[in-house]
């Protein structure tokens, strides 16, 4: 795994470490593009706080902003999350095959 890919995955995990941000991501997954006000109406935090969370998610590449007239709509981009998941899947798959080989190794003794 390259350093830059590792850094991107680290940024995703960091962005998702906050429960409110995870809530925002799930809400966007269910509701499509939303404004900060619409998101804030579903969460126990202010619109300003939601905007800060959206910026953090944006820095991780999970959210993009689009201006529509006087409103800014935020859209979810789940691709970086797939990268975070694939790290665990790749490491896990390696251990699955190693441990199967270890089972064969000790069984043949």
């Amino acid at each position, binding site marked *: *795994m390259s*350093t830059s890919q*590792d*850094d991107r*995955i*680290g*940024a995703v*995990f*960091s962005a*998702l*470490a*906050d429960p409110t941000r*995870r809530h925002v*991501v*799930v809400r966007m*997954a*269910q509701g499509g593009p939303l404004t900060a006000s619409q998101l804030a109406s579903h969460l126990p935090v202010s619109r300003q706080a939601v905007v800060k969370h959206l910026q953090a998610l944006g820095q991780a590449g999970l959210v993009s902003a689009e201006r529509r007239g006087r409103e800014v709509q935020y859209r*979810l981009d*789940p691709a970086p*999350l*797939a990268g*975070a*998941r694939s*790290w*665990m899947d790749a*490491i*896990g798959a390696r*251990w*699955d095959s*190693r*441990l199967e*080989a*270890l*089972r*064969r*190794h*000790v*069984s043949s*003794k």
Partner: protein
Amino acid sequence: MSTDTVRREVVLPATPDEVWEAITLPEALRDWFGAEVDWDVQPGAPGQFRVDDGTVREARVAQVDPGHHLAFTWWPEGREGEASRVDYDLEEVEWGTRLVVTETQARASGLAMASVAMASVAAWDVRLLWLSLRAGALVPA
């Protein structure tokens, strides 16, 4: 457990001492791990894994409790900032030995702050997020 921890558990038909030999002795590791391992299993000792796919990983032994626990960190040659930690926990059970393996990203370098934040995220949180994204048809099944 942080998001970037992988955990696997297996019960092996062998004694803890036999499993300990399998996870520490180079000739055993050559057979099942798929690597030429050069190390001295002592806390703090350096080591090297020449993996069958041609890559080389450097390692450092962290904790040694023969028959019970072995921990080491390893990283792609020259990139210690990408180190991850491997822990083997052995426990004698009725049918042999339960071996639990965890591998955790240490993220010692530029991601130190992120790793503090990550410690509060359970692995299943990312899985749940993934499932809700899939339910919203945002990612392919």
